[in-house]
């Protein structure tokens, strides 16, 4: 977050952003579930140039056992970036950022999962960032949530996340890497859309309380748009599975 963003113009005279979007427009987003054979649930998400793969394993036995919780499943989340996911090759060792984001993603997903149904077990959510272009923690949460649904883990609601911020004095939604880096503020919001609960909020930059509330609304709007895509992806998968099953029936 740099103070002087005057040099690089992030919004042009037509009011369009560097990637051609309008301020309140989210990036083109594709979601699929059931993309990995071995995982209990999985998903793949492209949001602009972000490419995210998520696998969910569990509920399953936990090792070492003394970490198990007597009253609920232990949710374990890992956020991990492949070495070639960014412009500069990343070190393969987990960074401090990776470790914080893993914790933050857990905190965003946990409210939605009925962990109390599976005491003494673990549910593992593995977020792999194959390509990164800003907003991967949000994309990871959004993708993880449908991978959890795909795994058949009972949930109170989906979780969907989106960032919003302020660049060149304007409020924008779903920041890409340049906007994140050069903008004036970056607000990350995750919600459970049916329950109307906020499960994650993170911010850095500089906003008055009033601006904060406006940017928050914009992030929420992004969340609801992504929520529709989540539902469509899940629906498509169920329809496909249903079709396969019924064809199996016919072939018998």
């Amino acid at each position, binding site marked *: *977050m740099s*103070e002087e963003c005057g040099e690089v113009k992030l919004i042009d005279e037509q009011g369009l952003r560097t990637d051609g979007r309008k301020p309140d427009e989210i990036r083109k987003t594709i979601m699929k579930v059931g993309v990995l054979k071995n995982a209990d649930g999985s998903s793949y998400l492209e949001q602009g140039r972000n490419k995210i793969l998520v696998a969910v394993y569990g509920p399953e036995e936990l090792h070492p056992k003394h*970490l198990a*919780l007597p*009253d*609920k499943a*232990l949710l374990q989340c890992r956020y991990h970036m492949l070495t070639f996911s960014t412009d500069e090759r990343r070190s393969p060792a987990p960074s*401090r*950022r990776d*470790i*914080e984001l*893993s*914790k*933050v993603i857990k*905190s965003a997903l*946990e*409210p*939605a999962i009925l962990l109390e149904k599976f005491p003494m077990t673990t549910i593992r959510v593995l977020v792999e960032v194959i390509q990164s272009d800003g907003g991967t923690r949000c994309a990871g949460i959004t993708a993880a949530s449908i991978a959890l649904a795909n795994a058949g883990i009972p949930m109170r609601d989906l979780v969907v996340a989106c960032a919003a911020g302020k660049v060149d004095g304007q409020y924008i939604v779903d920041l890409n890497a340049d906007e994140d880096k050069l903008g004036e503020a970056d*607000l990350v919001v995750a*919600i*459970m859309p049916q*329950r*109307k*609960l*906020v*499960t*994650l*909020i*993170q*911010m*850095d*930059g*500089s*906003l*008055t*309380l009033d601006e*904060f*509330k406006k940017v928050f609304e914009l992030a929420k709007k992004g969340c609801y748009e992504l929520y529709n895509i989540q539902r469509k992806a899940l629906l498509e998968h169920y329809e496909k599975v249903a079709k396969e099953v019924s064809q199996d029936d016919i072939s018998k």
Partner: protein
Amino acid sequence: MISPSDMYGMSFLKRRAMLKLLAKGTRLDGREFHEYRPVKINIGVVEKASGSAEVSIGNTVVIAGVKWDIGEPFPDTPDEGVLVTMAEFLPTSASFIEPGPPDEHAIELARVTDRGIRHAPLIDLKKLCLIPGKKVLTVFVDIYSENYDGNLFDAASRAAVASILTCKIPSFKVGEDENIEVDEEQLKPMPIVKVPISVTLVNIGDYILVDPTFEEEQVSDVRLTFTFTEDDKICAIQKGGPGGISEDLLMEAVDIAFKVSKEQRKLLMGAVKNAQKENDT
């Protein structure tokens, strides 16, 4: 290292007892919902550090120290000094904390403290550039918890900010051959822009409690840390905890935090001024 099971998800019974108490308008230690425990800021406790402070909030005790070194800038900010913030839970802090490299909790603590400082911004990093693209000042802010009774975020932030505000760095001269002369006689303060004040609160049921104790953190749904600058802006937010929060309560929380930050700012700046006065005499 604190295992997740130690931090959250504690007994259902404890939580029920706490909620009963809160319904009566009281906290376990008798405080108001939006009241901090006594905050003590002890500045200059480590003479070998360029700046240092020990901060206690109730029984939580944190010590921070600032050291500098000459290093290289990051490639994308060739004309800025480098700020490195580290936090460690000393095993003295509580029986369940084991020695070892910073775990996820310590890393989150360091990064949230760092973001408050960086986005205020507290330090004018451009003024720490010695030779653009080649040599800059690296400022190490190292934070240790000595005793842990909740709300490490605010104690860490206060200790780090107080250390930086009262820190003395030498004067530097860049010679013709790009050699850097360090003049330890000519000490000067760190170049300051804006002072961040963090306020941490938790949400338990419908209640919002400022400055949670360890017990309150354990049974809480959501932990929120808001950081404000003196021009009434928010510069950082962090959510933790296993629960969600309604939008109404969230907005209420921001407003409470903002209000409380004012008195906390006074307290910190008072301690800083006293320390500077003592130092001058």
